[in-house]
């Protein structure tokens, strides 16, 4: 009860203090203050590039009235002389959760997944909440405002940081004095998006990054459809999205890869997201630049790892150590490449870290004018409020900083941070600068004292002859208090004095160690100079280790180039009818195999003596899960709309390891969490290229389907999702294909239709434009899917795993499907009881195209050995065995015109082996893709040495950082990401 009373009183008080013109006032008299305030004789940064020296800033009623050198100051103006001081527009943080609490995940709640939305009257997915308005949950946070103002911020933008579509935000001035009516500059300051699900809902979909991307795309398609009035029911989410269409959209991407992902979605719908980056943009600056997007960049540069324990230090990856060394480069690299960006305190533990981190960026060469822009004009522009904030031109809010000197200099003191004409003192500007050297006398002794540091943190050094005393100093409200202690005798002096405005002398009371009170005197002998600190700064220059492609261990220091090569005198496994050719030359030019024969003329090509060695086409893995950030979207029983191509990870070291095993192409398949999985990505392992550079040009289109235990969710506690039986799997397919057919018919008829990514993809299957690679085990389900396909008049392209394929090889042959199987896996689940290693040989004997695949990062890098097992189990010939990892998977992937064999005109994707390629004794010596050597045993040895040296160097630097008193964090072991079909994420 008492609380309630207080609350009412408080509210009442607020109304009174920020009385608006049409509000009555009863507790006191209603009177206005229309006086001006003139700040004179200052160096004024009207904008980061428009600087007025000896100028005047005139403000009234919280706004800038005029600024310049010769402006008329009205009579009713209060004058503030700022001689020697600087004025800057105060900073703007465009990305915070100021005053809007970010919801936290509720612990527990059981593990059973929830498939349907928990809301009614909104979008079908709980994580889409464009109807959320930040203002509804906004409460001005005085304490946080103070912390932000201390660092120089005057305006912050905030929103409810939860969900994939998050609704609108609030732009608020950090004005403690007046209420929301005045300080809220905009209550729909933008729309906000991310790839992260809401913590408030347990709805399973999307369960992956690619799912979040697909969901966002569908959301926009649906909004479009809704806007056309085609939806009979009410959807408040889509309505909000449509209403807010004109407002700037901000996308929290969080790292360089996601920056590009967000941009791609934006491109599709003509939306220019302002992208909130992750600080690693310098690693992919070309692609970042190419987005032409505007960015908001956090500067939470990582702390050094504590490497004092060498055992633990050994676990830290070079990649992570490099990030510590290189990340402060980010603002510099972005600005030098002409990327428009604003800075933010987002991701910092507290705003007070901001200045320190910014200094680090300066040490790394970030331009100070660009920094000022990134904190003033740029965020103002991003927020569409350049007419109100970000500069000190006439009509803008009187949001400005008064400083002792250049705002980003280490020694500069921030005196005042004015917000909407309200003064906030950070450090008293009237307090005298007492820094300097002093002759100090007390208790009959003569000391030397030096006061240095910043206004925020003064440092005192007291010396008697050459003996240094431990000392402390505080200086506030014109009073100085200090103490110094003789460490040997533990004797302490404490003293205090008032500092006079004039003079270079001060005197006050001191208490001697024996308790006697007496007087001390201090006379300045030398003024403070910035030079000492300047020289310190020079020592600060850091060694920055070079960026590699990709920027992880085993990356290339320069991207490798295409070469013309002649392999002389090799045993050539053609994987063609030509068979195995001995003592044969193969010529590679412009990335193609141009000639096969004896005694070929090398021309300008580099000759490689391959005597005693074997040359083969590069291995193709039909079933891989490396180099992807997510594999399964299990939130729905069909996820045809998701695509692995959206989530390629070109930095996965598994790519390099695969190259070392002679692999040149892989199909990255969606996992087997649902009967209809996602679209595959087919890539070449061009280590060092970005995600788009890995993807096949004009790639054949594939999708993963799956049957059996996984899609029935048999092996984990989930009993809700349809289907739970093989019987249900059939009906699910029929249902989806029926719908896809109806969709396609409607689309082709020219009638208006709701664009549905999932149906689009399924219709591609029906139209023969997309091929199915289906995860399959037992014969019944294999047969079933063929029958379903035949019913819908298409053919299944590939059965992958297909461990009971040997039981229905005749039926598969008749249907015209290929097989991609494990060499010898079984016994890991109930449905592989009858899996036998003879499977490949039996299927091949019935005329099927048979490939051996890995589904595993380990096995992928020695698929040559797995192929050899088909010789042991079932007696395939060596030539046919070799085809199971080269031309056969190429055929299954519809890439056999381009890769998979050594044939004139084909891509020069070849491997030089030290021994018979099917032998466990063989090593890949060189792995070449389109004439570029991506793996080479000798290069690999050099890379190992380089890694060793660089690790050593960075560890030393981290140790020094710790010794210098820098913050450190405990070592982290990089997780060996290892996806298989079964991986749920």
């Amino acid at each position, binding site marked *: 009860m008492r609380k309630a009373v207080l609350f009412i009183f408080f509210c009442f008080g607020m109304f009174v203090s920020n009385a608006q013109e049409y509000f009555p006032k009863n507790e006191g008299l209603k009177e206005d203050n229309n006086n001006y305030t003139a700040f004179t004789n200052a160096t004024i940064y009207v904008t980061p590039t428009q600087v007025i020296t000896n100028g005047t800033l005139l403000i009234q009623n919280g706004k800038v009235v005029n600024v310049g050198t010769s402006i008329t100051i009205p009579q009713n103006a209060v004058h503030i002389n700022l001689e020697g001081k600087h004025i800057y527009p105060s900073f703007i943080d465009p990305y915070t959760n100021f005053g809007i609490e970010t919801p936290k995940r509720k612990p527990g709640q059981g593990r059973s997944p929830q498939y349907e939305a928990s809301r009614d009257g909104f979008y079908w997915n709980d994580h889409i909440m464009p109807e959320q308005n930040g203002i509804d949950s906004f409460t001005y946070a005085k304490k946080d405002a103070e912390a932000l103002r201390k660092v120089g911020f005057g305006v912050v933008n905030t929103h409810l940081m939860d969900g994939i579509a998050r609704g609108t935000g609030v732009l608020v001035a950090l004005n403690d004095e007046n209420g929301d009516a005045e300080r809220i500059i905009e209550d729909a300051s933008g729309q906000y998006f991310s790839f992260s699900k809401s913590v408030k809902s347990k709805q399973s979909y999307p369960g992956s990054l690619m799912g979040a991307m697909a969901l966002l795309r569908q959301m926009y398609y649906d909004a479009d459809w809704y806007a056309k009035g085609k939806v009979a029911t009410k959807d408040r989410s889509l309505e909000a999205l449509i209403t807010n269409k004109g407002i700037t959209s901000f996308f929290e991407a969080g790292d360089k890869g996601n920056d590009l992902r967000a941009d791609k979605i934006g491109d599709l719908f003509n939306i220019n997201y302002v992208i909130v980056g992750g600080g690693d943009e310098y690693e992919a600056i070309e692609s970042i630049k190419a987005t032409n997007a505007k960015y908001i960049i956090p500067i939470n540069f990582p702390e050094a790892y504590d490497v004092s324990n060498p055992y633990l230090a050994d*676990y830290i990856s070079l990649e992570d150590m490099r990030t510590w060394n290189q990340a402060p480069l980010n603002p510099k690299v972005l600005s030098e490449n002409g990327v428009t960006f604003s800075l933010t305190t987002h991701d910092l533990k507290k705003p007070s870290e901001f200045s320190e981190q910014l200094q680090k960026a300066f040490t790394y060469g970030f331009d100070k004018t660009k920094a000022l822009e990134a904190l003033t004009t740029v965020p103002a522009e991003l927020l569409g409020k350049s007419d109100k904030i970000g500069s000190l031109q006439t009509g803008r809010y009187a949001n400005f900083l008064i400083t002792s000197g250049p705002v980003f200099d280490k020694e500069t003191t921030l005196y005042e941070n004015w917000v909407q004409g309200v003064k906030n003192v950070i450090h008293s500007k009237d307090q005298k600068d007492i820094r300097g050297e002093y002759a100090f006398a007390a208790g009959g002794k003569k000391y030397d004292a030096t006061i240095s540091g910043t206004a925020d943190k003064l440092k005192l050094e007291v010396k008697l002859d050459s003996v240094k005393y431990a000392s402390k100093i505080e200086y506030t409200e014109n009073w100085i208090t200090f103490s110094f202690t003789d460490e040997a005798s533990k004797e302490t002096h404490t003293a205090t004095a008032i500092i006079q405005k004039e003079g270079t002398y001060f005197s006050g009371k001191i208490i001697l160690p024996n308790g006697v009170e007496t007087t001390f005197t201090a006379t300045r002998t030398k003024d403070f100079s910035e030079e000492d600190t300047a020289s310190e700064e020079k020592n600060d220059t850091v060694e920055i280790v070079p960026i590699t492609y990709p920027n992880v261990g085993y990356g290339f220091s320069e991207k490798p180039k295409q070469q013309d090569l002649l392999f002389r005198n090799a045993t050539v496994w053609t994987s063609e009818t030509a068979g195995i050719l001995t003592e044969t030359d193969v010529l590679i030019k412009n990335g193609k195999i141009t000639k096969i024969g004896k005694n070929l003329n090398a021309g300008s090509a580099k000759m490689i003596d391959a005597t005693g060695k074997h040359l083969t086409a590069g291995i193709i893995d039909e079933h891989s899960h490396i180099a992807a950030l997510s594999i399964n979207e299990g939130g729905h029983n069909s996820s045809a709309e998701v695509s692995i191509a959206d989530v390629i990870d070109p930095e996965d070291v598994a790519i390099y390891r695969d190259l070392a095993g002679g692999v040149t192409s892989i199909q990255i398949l969606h996992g087997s969490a649902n009967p209809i999985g996602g679209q595959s990505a087919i890539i070449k392992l061009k280590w060092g290229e970005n995600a788009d550079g890995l993807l096949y040009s004009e790639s054949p289109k594939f999708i993963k389907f799956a049957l059996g235990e996984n899609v029935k969710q048999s092996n984990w506690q989930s009993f809700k999702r349809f289907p739970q039986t093989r019987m249900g799997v059939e009906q699910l397919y029929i249902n989806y294909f029926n719908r896809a057919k109806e969709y396609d018919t409607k689309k082709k008829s020219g009638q208006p239709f709701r664009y549905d990514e999932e149906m689009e993809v399924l219709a591609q299957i029906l139209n023969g434009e997309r091929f199915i690679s289906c995860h399959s085990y037992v014969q019944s389900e294999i047969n079933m899917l063929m029958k379903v396909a035949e019913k819908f008049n298409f053919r299944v392209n590939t059965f992958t795993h297909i461990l009971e394929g040997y039981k229905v090889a005749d039926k598969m042959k008749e249907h015209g499907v290929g097989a991609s199987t494990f060499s010898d896996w079984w016994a890991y689940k109930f449905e592989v009881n009858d899996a036998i290693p003879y499977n490949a040989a039996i299927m091949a004997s019935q005329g099927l195209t048979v490939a051996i695949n890995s589904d595993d990062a380990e096995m992928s890098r020695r698929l040559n050995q797995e192929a050899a097992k088909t010789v042991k189990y079932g007696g395939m010939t060596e030539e046919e065995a070799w085809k199971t990892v080269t031309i056969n998977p190429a055929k299954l992937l519809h890439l056999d015109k381009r890769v998979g064999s050594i044939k004139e005109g084909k891509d020069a994707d070849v491997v030089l082996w030290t021994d018979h390629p099917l032998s466990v*004794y063989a090593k890949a010596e060189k792995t070449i893709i389109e004439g570029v050597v991506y793996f080479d045993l000798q290069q690999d040895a050099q890379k190992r040495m380089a890694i060793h040296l660089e690790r050593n160097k960075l560890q030393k630097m981290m140790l020094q950082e710790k010794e210098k008193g820098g913050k450190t964090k405990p070592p982290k072991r990089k997780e060996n990401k290892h996806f298989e079909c079964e991986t749920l994420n």
Partner: protein
Amino acid sequence: MKNLKQILVGVAFLFGIHAIAQQTPATKQTGTITITGATAHIGNGTILENSTLVFENGKITAIGNQTTPAKGRIIDAKGKHVYPGFIAPAKPLGLVEVDAVRASNDDDEIGDFIPNIRSLIAYNAESKVVESMRPNGVLLGQIAPQGGRISGTSSIVQFDAWNWEDAAVKVDDGIHLHWPSTFRRGRWWQGEPRGFLPNKDYTKDVDEVTAFYNNSKAYGKSRTETKNEAFNAMKGLFDGSQKLYVYANGEKEIIDAVTSAKESGVKEVVLVGGYEAYKIIPFLKKYNISVLVQHTHSLPKKADDDYDLPYKLPKLLVDGGLLVALENSSTSNFQTRNLPFYAGQLVAQGMEKETALQLITGNTAKILGIDASYGTLEIGKSATLFISEGDALDMRTNVLTHAFIDGRELSLETHQTELWKRYMEKYSR
């Protein structure tokens, strides 16, 4: 009620398959058998071309060149190869039939310190998975319980038996200790960062192990106390009748594991895994530690490790002068039939073939303490061996024609070969 019935039917179905599938164990060797003309790979690093090998009553009675007199039934193995049966250590073979079917899993009991848990009595001699080892030459195994800190006590078995009692080669041979790790995954659901972080409880975890050693030792010294089977089960470690198999991979973990075992008076310590053992070879030599090193077909554990570190790791240890054999405890049971190829991989790394072979035969027998009877083709030892068409360490040529355990000639058929033949027959109709 209906559910229970379904489960019971399901279980019955499972067991049903196993019983039908298993090949019938061979009868005791009666007559003398001589294998002639084969290249004999002795298992101790040597080779004998064009050999004659004679065995009677389950034991090798003669081995030599073509002048050695042949006796009894003669198997002409000219151009072929004869090897001692391969030995798979540290596996729960016969304890797990189908990984994902919980009802078929008997490898991991509740409890952190349960050395009294014994694998032998749960070993399913009729496992289809065990049976599938034989056509690749894997004829013996150490059956180890899994999980916890001290998982239990292993026994060594041969792979052609009616039941566990008949299968036993060495009962309760060793105790398996999984050493704590210096890193552990962040409990992200409790607000910790994801990924591996230093394990703050490492010291506490180590203390628990040391305390358990000390309690076990103290327990043995008194007769008046109440029974404690767990402490009692540790007795053999301190008198040397049992070995301690300690699973550790990191450099620090290995040093801590060996130091604490030795300081606590454990006589025989075998390191299992040993991913970073190559960094501390002198230390391991000083304590005379033999290593069951992780098999070669694994991925590097750290991002910056050499791509081929797992391939060459055993070689680094052998070159350093340690007694080394291969283990594949981290893989599924069925993979164990690839043991010969794990060894073959070492040859590509520059190891001699016969040395590589020792890592799955002679050395393994020595480390497991069964070398008096198994592991090499020497007079007086068990005739546990096989004939292969070609090099048994290479996938292409590992094709067995005959295999013997204690002189008994076993069937090389399996559930899998039967299905192969059955369906090839279908297609030939």
